[in-house]
């Protein structure tokens, strides 16, 4: 019943951690019991994006090495009581955990959670192999940019090679103004090139920066990206939700103003 989802991209800086935080929070808002696992050993960041950085006692490596029980390392979110974070170690390297150990951990968490979401590190080395080991499905995050799409294609190939049957695409950081004047790949372009199912498109939104500043994911809020993330959560749960029109980002007044510029 429960599902293990890996959020991956190949390239860094496309929004894996932000996506993990928002989707995890969104699923918890929808009443699901969610565990988020940061697998980027040595470069942990999911804790700060979630606003939980001050509550870390144990981490992923401690759990895997048996220094503590899994429940001891899971940080419970104060606002959403069915949302938990397993932070990763800031010391050590990706080799301190093996794919087998990761699979064992995710299988253990399946018993008590509806969704286990893994934030994958950038790259295709050990960290990537660890993160995908126990996953049932993948969310491939990319940006409408040549290098990010290329890396996403590589990742999709590697997921297929590792028998991850289901991979859905999230196109992040779209700038509709640039797409409209032909200076950015459109969501359709990216979907056509990568040829996998689209599960959501997120605009490049200032509100994301603001929410990260505060350590409070914006999913479910008024902002267009908050709505887009919530729609992805619903689609993950199997609901059919139409894609948002990202052109409706600005109010009528906003559009008149930007045209004058």
């Amino acid at each position: 019943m429960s599902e293990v989802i890996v959020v991956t991209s190949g390239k860094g800086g496309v929004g894996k951690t932000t996506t993990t935080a928002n989707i995890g929070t969104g699923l918890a808002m929808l009443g699901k019991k969610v565990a988020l696992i940061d697998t980027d050993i040595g470069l942990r960041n999911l804790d700060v994006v979630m606003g939980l950085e001050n509550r870390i006692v144990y981490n992923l490596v401690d759990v895997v090495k048996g220094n503590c029980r899994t429940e001891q390392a899971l940080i419970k979110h104060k606002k959403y009581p069915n949302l938990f974070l397993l932070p990763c170690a800031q010391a050590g390297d990706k080799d301190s955990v093996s794919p087998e150990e990761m699979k064992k951990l995710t299988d253990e968490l399946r018993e008590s959670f509806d969704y286990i979401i893994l934030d994958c590190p950038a790259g295709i080395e050990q960290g990537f192999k660890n993160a995908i080991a126990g996953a049932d499905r993948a969310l491939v995050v990319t940006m409408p940019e040549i290098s990010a799409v290329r890396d996403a294609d590589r990742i999709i190939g590697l997921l297929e090679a590792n028998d991850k049957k289901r991979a859905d695409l999230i196109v992040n950081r779209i700038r509709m103004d640039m797409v409209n004047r032909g200076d950015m790949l459109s969501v359709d372009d990216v979907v056509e090139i990568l040829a996998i199912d689209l599960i959501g498109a997120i605009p490049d939104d200032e509100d994301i920066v603001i929410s990260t500043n505060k350590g409070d994911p914006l999913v479910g809020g008024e902002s267009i990206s908050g709505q887009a993330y919530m729609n992805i959560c619903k689609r993950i749960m199997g609901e059919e939700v139409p894609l948002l029109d990202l052109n409706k980002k600005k109010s009528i007044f906003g559009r008149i103003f930007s045209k004058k510029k």
Partner: protein
Amino acid sequence: MGILELFKKKSSGDVAKDRLKLLLVTDRANCSPEIMEQIKNDIIKVIQKYMDIDCEGLEINLTQTESEGKNGVVPALIANIPIKEVKHNDAKTEEKKSEEKKADDKASKEKSDDKNSKEKESKDSKSKGNKGK
């Protein structure tokens, strides 16, 4: 700027799309330089049976091309093979003979080299022996 943009044929988004499509053909084919080199060497072997070709100038590349039957682009292996001379059967056998000769020459040279080195060694040991005395 505005007028210039009107004359532009392709937007940068389209350029990116075209570049990406081409890039992914080579990426997906997973043709490492070693494999390309092997393909190249095999092509040389086959064609050399019939023609004298410029091995140094031979180029092979993986690209995309408009398919003739279907609409759209398909991956293609394109080889540029400069021909020096179209061989005749006689020329082929002659070349074989000359190659054999060369091989013989080499072998005999190596043998004589061996002799020389042996002679040197024996000389050295003799001189050492003299010193000892």
